[in-house]
């Protein structure tokens, strides 16, 4: 009696379907937790500090772990603070945050505590730097100004909101590994800082394309709210061109090595691709892609 090959095929497809369903069932909560709790940003932050450590030829230190913990804590809190605004723009994320708000806050608090404690090992400056994201986030996210005050909350002011976030992010990424090991500031550090500041600025404005409806209602001025998607795209092209020019000048002046320049250029190309796709592809995908745009350097080095 001959076996029917069709049966084998059917059996395999059933098995494949079961495996796919199992992976989906297991993978979805993990994906949600990573994406919606901002845990993936913690990994990105750690990766970026590792990149800076390598770019500036610094010894390995706990700085990547500190950056990861502080990033998770600050962004976790930001998710909690924005949960109402996210109801319209990111309902799945808002639902996840609402479901897990107590756990998320507790984990954020513990992460910040661990981050600050580890930063102590880097000395007083690292210790002070560990408080910077928390303090700036408070100024950024809280309505510290009373109603009717002539000053508006920083989160609502065009460019200033993104500048503040980008500046703090870039300070942490660039200077934390330097401070941790007590090394003198290398000549390439300012260029690295400007690069991280510029790309972080773009990373803040890219998700704003998807949030523009909610931001407009909340009175938050962002590039997409004020200039529209096309205007935002053009502004970010300009920013990337400026960054490319600075990297080029740094290479020309001998401040940046060939490997560093190549790595930064790859990152800029990745980010340029994301900016080109603004308004043409789902914004949540572009947001994650933009945040990961600096990681190819790490992948290249690892390979």
């Amino acid at each position, binding site marked *: 009696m001959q076996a029917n090959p069709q049966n084998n095929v059917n059996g395999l497809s059933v098995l494949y379907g079961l495996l796919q369903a199992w992976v989906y069932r297991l993978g979805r909560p993990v994906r949600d937790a990573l994406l919606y709790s901002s845990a993936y940003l913690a990994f990105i932050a750690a990766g970026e500090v590792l990149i800076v450590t390598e770019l500036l030829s610094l010894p390995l230190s706990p700085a990547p772990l500190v950056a990861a913990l502080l990033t998770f804590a600050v962004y976790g809190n930001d998710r909690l603070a924005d949960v109402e605004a996210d109801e319209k723009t990111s309902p799945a994320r808002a639902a996840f945050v609402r479901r897990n708000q107590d756990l998320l806050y*507790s984990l954020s*608090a513990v992460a*910040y*505590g661990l981050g*600050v*404690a*580890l930063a102590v090992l880097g*000395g007083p400056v690292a210790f002070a730097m560990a408080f910077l994201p928390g303090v700036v986030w408070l100024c950024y996210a809280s309505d510290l100004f009373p109603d009717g005050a002539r000053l508006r909350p920083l989160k609502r002011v065009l460019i200033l909101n993104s500048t503040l976030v980008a500046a703090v992010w870039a300070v942490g990424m660039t200077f934390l590994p330097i401070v941790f090991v007590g090394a003198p500031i290398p000549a390439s550090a300012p260029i690295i800082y400007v690069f991280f500041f510029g790309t972080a600025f773009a990373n803040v404005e890219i998700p704003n394309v998807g949030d523009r409806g909610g931001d407009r209602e909340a009175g938050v001025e962002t590039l997409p709210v004020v200039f529209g998607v096309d205007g935002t795209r053009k502004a970010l092209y300009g920013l990337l061109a400026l960054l490319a020019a600075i990297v080029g000048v740094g290479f020309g002046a001998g401040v940046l090595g060939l490997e560093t320049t190549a790595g930064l250029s790859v990152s800029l190309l990745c980010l340029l691709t994301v900016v080109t796709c603004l308004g043409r592809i789902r914004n949540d995908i572009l947001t994650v892609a933009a945040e990961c745009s600096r990681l190819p350097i790490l992948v290249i080095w690892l390979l």
Partner: protein
Amino acid sequence: MPSLVVIKLALLASIAAGISVGLLAWRERPKPGSVPLVLLMAAQSWWSAALIFQVQAASLEAKLFFIDISWVGVTLLPVAWLLFVLEYGGYNEYTTRRHVAGIMLVPAITIFLVLTNDYHQLVYRGLEIIERNGATMVSRTPAVWFWVIAAYTYLLGLLGLIPMLDLVTSQVRSFRNQSVALLLGLFAPLVTNLLFLFGYLPTAGIDPTPVAFTVSGTACLFALTRFELFGSSPTPIRHARRALYKQMQEGAIVLDTHDTVVDMNDEAASVLQTTREEALGRNLNDVSPDLLSIGGSAGNHVFNPPKNTRSYDVSESQLTDIHDRTIGRIITLHDISDLFRMQQRLEVLHRVFRHNIRTNIQVILGHAGHLATHNSQQKADILKQNAIEIEETGEKVRNIIDVFEEGRKDRENLRLHAILRECVDATARSYPDVTVEYDPGPEDIVVDSLFDIVCSNVIENAAQHNSSSEPWVRVGVEPGEETVTVQVADNGPGIESHELALVEEGTETPLKHGSGFGLALTAWGADIAGGSVAFESDSSGTCVTLEMPVAGRR
């Protein structure tokens, strides 16, 4: 001796726990105790961090600098602890800005003295460099102010124990658990610090107190997460008791065993026509001798304060301590004036009712005997008249009972002008021989609907009992801001003084006819509706003045 790595790890754990608990407490703002707990954790973390920096510092100057700045955390810790316990335990009266400034005075002086120690050496007298386990540590000899701040720290710590110990014995399990966890968090650093100060801990000059604060942080974290530190809080207990005592409708006076007034609430002070400040510390015999005699007597428990028309039921309860020894007593004064007044009114109503019925029945019985043997139309008319009067008496009593019932209900408000217009028109229709004049006031004044019955009764009585040859009744209105006055004047024969006494004082009076019912209904109805009535009467007529509170304008 524990290695330096172990001490550093413990200090790092202390910072991590401190920052984490601080952030968890920050989220709980503005719940009582949350902000002081944040400060407590911040101070602990600061001290721990300064200690690590001191260990890591390469130069002596740097080590001394970190020792100096660690004092910010050291001195803030007991202050934050005390404020936390006071807020958590509900002792908010001690957490005002003035109190906080007072508590902060010694820490502020300490920090100033630490920073200027080179000039006076009040905090430290010298220093010693210690080399242990490959680490260079600085040991400084404590001077007089060091012991002052140490004693102050322990004083604040122990003061914070008092509310905590009170909660340990709480009947609410969660409060017991919370306070036990927090006490553990307090004792760990206290005991560690004592052992360090007296040289029982071989830590090479490193004060391990902040390490012990890891236990504090963990205990607080446990209290926060497991025992819902800010989820269920004992804060309202004291305030509720105090508020209950202060705001209760009964007057309450607390006496010690010598009858000295040790406390009284505002209501009691009002009843005794004194103030708390004036009465506290004085013997009750000096404050109110009448009350003291009632409080001690077994029979009469009704207190009528001098120069006051109100009456109070006096009750007394003994205060005992945990050994069941009497340590004083509480006298409570329950206002029974309304009850008294109602009882009085019912007695009057009963007397008048019985008097009128008895009079009518006697007349009926007397004439019925005569009618049994004689056929007399006149006697039959008298019988009929008395039977009608009995029916009218019943009707009037029913009206008064209705007024009492209305007094217990929520009533609506009516426009005074509509009330008076209706009463005047109805009276004019019922008594066409009487000239009824009405001078209307403003039409927008609104009063209690019970005045409808009162006004109707006054105007109708003025017409009904007017035996003048040219009878008239005049109704006038005088509006005011909060009250409105209605005057009803007539040229009738006036009201007998004994009948007025009946409604004005409730005295025993033999009545001659049922007009007392009308007066009673007027006086009591006005009183129940929050107004008042005054009668001016002589042989040339009567003027009834009704004063009513204005309920609004529409």
